[in-house]
């Protein structure tokens, strides 16, 4: 079937509501009699809770209740874990330590909630929180992941022997043998620091308990409403059908909005039932820095073995991964790092061991990229160092090692974050790299422009980096597609949406199959009363997994339409056409039936639905991949650097993305742009600075620097479409891609710009201050 809607730059269905302030976000929900919560959070990063006196807060006018861990009685318990621990592979270590709703005995990171105040409004709740008297006994703080593993380190979790949370080794081929064959071996230590996701909307939870109806409704800024519903039901002793979780419009997710459970996510519904009043808690920006999860901290000891002509024989990467005070998200991030540290290269021999470390920092869970940017940064830095050492052009050494188009599916023989085999399904890596080089004008820049500008006193540099992105993992998603009597189509799916354009890209998939206008397809996501099977929006899987389920359900509805129309129009199916909301007899445009009429006939008030058929033009389908498709791309950047101030300005930025079938280029380019802006943040602007006491020194947007309009370059986006054989649409994920390679490109371009200085970049993120130190020393 020739595609009419898939691949088109179609403006979004959801925009008019968002543009007029009519889209409902969690904080926009206002219920009669609603109370407001504020949390008292620990200022200490590591301390024993000695005593807690909430009596003054309870007496404060306007305060309805104050709760501590003690007040929760038997309802106080940690967890549950969000991502199950890995299956028993050889030598795996995993100590599951889950966050608690309110601190009972020991504080493990600054910002952990100690008490919650419920009051008539948020102002009063915050007034009362200030009246709570707490006595802490401070403990030595564990901040550095290397020191945390030393024998005499204090412990984050006293019941463990050490701060080791997990350990996993993965191997491929025979690295030791490769090492013996190598002409050159390069070793480095590379450090990557933490950043924040910083969605513009902070988190929020509103819960309403209907005591007579015995029903709990929760509005939650979650990326995964269904698991939240299931978990809440289990925790609160309700049937899953008594709990409805709604994730309405969400102001950006980027990973941390999927964390089951945040303490607030469990407490607010529990309190709403306890007090029998609707309760709202909206995280403020300071809380977002202290209580929402973060990511990226790792220390790598990496070793690459090559031949003289730059062919990689083997790679060894042992690293430490900072998980913060608890590890509810299992091993997702470090396994992702392991799966990306070979990049898009044909590396036959590989060994990697990681250790996950508890520290007195805020919990780590995935942030857009989720371990992948670290892996790509490591391998791409090593490629740059190898190119320099061997005297090979950095692009050339990459070309010599890329996996070739005829090598797919390319099986790595290690497991991915879903514990599925890491198999790169398809791609044309050299073509993507070449397209990028042509677009940025690599040869011309190196040979002509850079020397000319250098003569004028300008320091400009270029960076080019290819990368993979594993996407679209299982377990599954589902969707129900219904043609209604209006002739319009309603689609319900279980994932949440945080700005990815699902209301439009999914509608395109449906409209393509069902022959209606994109604007006549209504997508419902993030409401467990509409669809209650599924997991959530993470791992760049919306378009792949939910998209494929929607495609499958639409195809089934299409079949039903043809079967019924054939009967009514008394014409064989192959002579029918489905277009513009009606089924027509080919070559006889006057003989047709509209989808609305057909929908009515499929769900008659009288007469029988034939045995063996179902009523309505409706189908539900599920899609679960054995393993996910892997996208590929390349980024290139030209930047200008003032060596006297170390101020950097990105002058050009080119992206080539191969995420298989492009559903909507407009939306895809938007995703890429946003990803790059976050990647640029991770390169040069965004770093969470903790002091030795575990205090965040920049818990505000004045000091945690998000990239603004004046810092962002324009980005030129190109596409290569190598369809994935793993799903009918041929799609691969793209949501996180933009952020992944940017730090690696940036580091290369900075070194290139300052090629007359002796220094090396072995860390991320950078800053003018850090570049000054590096170049000076």
């Amino acid at each position: 079937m020739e595609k009419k809607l898939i691949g088109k730059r179609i403006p979004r269905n959801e925009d008019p509501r968002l543009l007029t302030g009519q889209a409902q976000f969690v904080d926009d929900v206002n219920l009669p009699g609603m109370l407001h919560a504020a949390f008292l959070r620990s200022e200490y990063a590591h301390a024993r809770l000695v005593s807690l006196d909430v009596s003054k807060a309870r007496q404060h006018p306007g305060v309805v209740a104050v709760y501590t861990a003690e007040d929760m009685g038997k309802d106080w318990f940690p967890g549950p874990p969000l991502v199950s621990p890995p299956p028993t592979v050889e030598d795996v270590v995993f100590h599951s330590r889950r966050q608690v709703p309110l601190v009972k005995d020991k504080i493990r990171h600054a910002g952990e909630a100690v008490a919650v105040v419920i009051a008539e409004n948020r102002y009063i709740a915050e007034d009362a929180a200030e009246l709570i008297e707490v006595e802490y006994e401070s403990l030595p703080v564990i901040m550095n992941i290397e020191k945390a593993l030393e024998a005499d380190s204090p412990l984050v979790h006293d019941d463990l022997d050490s701060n080791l949370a997990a350990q996993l080794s993965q191997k491929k081929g025979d690295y030791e043998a490769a090492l013996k064959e190598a002409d050159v071996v390069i070793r480095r230590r590379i450090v990557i620091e933490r950043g924040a996701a910083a969605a513009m909307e902070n988190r929020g939870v509103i819960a309403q308990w209907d005591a007579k109806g015995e029903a709990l409704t929760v509005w939650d800024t979650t990326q995964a409403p269904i698991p939240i519903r299931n978990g809440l039901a289990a925790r609160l002793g309700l049937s899953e059908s008594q709990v409805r979780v709604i994730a309405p419009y969400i102001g950006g997710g980027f990973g941390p909005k999927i964390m089951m459970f945040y303490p607030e996510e469990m407490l607010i519904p529990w309190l709403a039932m306890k007090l029998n009043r609707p309760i709202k808690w909206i995280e403020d920006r300071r809380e977002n820095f202290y209580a929402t999860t973060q990511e990226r901290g790792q220390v790598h000891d990496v070793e690459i073995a090559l031949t003289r002509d730059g062919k990689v024989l083997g790679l060894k990467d042992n690293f430490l991964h900072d998980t913060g005070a608890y590890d509810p998200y299992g091993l997702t991030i470090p396994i992702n790092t392991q799966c990306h540290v070979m990049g898009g290269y044909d590396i036959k021999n590989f060994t990697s061991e990681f250790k996950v470390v508890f520290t007195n920092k805020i919990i780590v869970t995935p942030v857009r990229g989720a371990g992948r940017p670290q892996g790509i940064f490591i391998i791409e830095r090593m490629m740059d160092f190898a190119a320099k050492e061997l005297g090979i052009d950095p692009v050339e050494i990459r070309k010599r090692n890329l996996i070739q188009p005829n090598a797919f599916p390319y099986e790595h023989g290690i497991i991915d974050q879903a514990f599925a085999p890491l198999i790169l399904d398809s791609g044309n890596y050299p073509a993507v790299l070449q397209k990028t080089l042509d677009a940025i004008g690599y040869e011309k820049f190196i040979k002509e422009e850079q020397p000319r500008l250098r003569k004028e006193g300008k320091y400009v540099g270029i960076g080019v980096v290819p990368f993979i992105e594993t996407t679209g993992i299982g377990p599954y998603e589902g969707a129900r597609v219904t043609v209604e009597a209006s002739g319009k189509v309603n689609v319900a799916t279980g994932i949440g949406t945080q700005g990815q354009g699902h209301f439009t890209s999914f509608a395109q998939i449906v409209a393509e199959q069902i022959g209606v206008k994109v604007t006549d397809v209504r997508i419902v996501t993030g409401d467990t009363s509409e669809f209650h099977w599924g997991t959530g929006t993470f791992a760049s899987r919306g378009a792949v997994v939910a998209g494929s389920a929607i495609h499958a359900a639409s195809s089934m509805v299409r079949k039903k339409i043809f079967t019924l129309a054939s009967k009514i129009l008394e014409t064989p199916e192959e002579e029918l056409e489905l277009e513009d909301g009606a089924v027509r007899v080919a070559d006889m445009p006057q003989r047709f039936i509209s989808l609305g009429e057909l929908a009515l006939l499929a769900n008659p008030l009288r007469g029988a639905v034939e045995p063996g058929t179902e009523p309505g033009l409706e189908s539900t389908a599920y899609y679960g991949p054995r393993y996910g498709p892997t996208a590929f791309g390349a980024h290139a950047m030209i930047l200008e650097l003032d060596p006297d101030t170390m101020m950097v300005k990105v002058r050009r930025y080119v992206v080539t993305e191969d995420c298989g079938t492009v559903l909507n280029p407009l939306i895809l380019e938007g995703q890429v742009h946003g990803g790059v802006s976050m990647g640029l943040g991770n390169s040069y602007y965004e770093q969470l600075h903790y002091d030795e006491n575990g205090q965040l020194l920049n818990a505000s947007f004045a000091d945690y620097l998000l990239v603004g309009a004046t810092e962002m370059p324009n980005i030129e986006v190109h596409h290569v479409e190598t369809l994935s054989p793993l799903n009918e649409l041929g799609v691969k994920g793209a949501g996180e891609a933009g952020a992944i390679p940017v730090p690696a490109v940036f580091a290369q371009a900075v070194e290139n710009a300052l090629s007359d200085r002796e220094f090396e970049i072995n860390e991320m993120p950078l800053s003018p201050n850090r570049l000054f130190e590096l170049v000076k020393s």
Partner: protein
Amino acid sequence: MESTAQNLFELAVTVNGTRYERTVEPRMLLSDFLRHELDLTGTHVGCEHGVCGACSVLMDGRPVRSCLMFAVQANGHEITTVEGLGTIDNLHPVQKSFQEAHGLQCGFCTPGILTTVVAFLEENPDPSEEEIREAISGNLCRCTGYQHIVDAVQLAAEKMK
């Protein structure tokens, strides 16, 4: 503006052409007043310290941070929020351009950008790209990387010529 008992103040403010009279505590932020007292929830709150710009509204035609004003300070002034620009069926040219150019993703920062841009284009109907980037330098967006926002403002400028 009248001070009443218990440190409450009566204020009268015109929002999107409608006059409202309310009694509030002086500490109530204008952002909270618009959202929770007037139920104009299109104005979003992202940082409450004046950096992200999501809460930007127009006061007497100029963009201001509604989180950095107390509601009582709007007494006697005219406020325009995103709800005052256009409707779903009759979008303002700036809103229309944002849809056409895909100048929004999650849409959370968008209301503050729209109000800022509407005022900006009145002052500067034919802006350069650099001027547009300066104009929205006080509005953080985590989704778009700003490029489509800049495109949308350029498109709007053309539409409004």
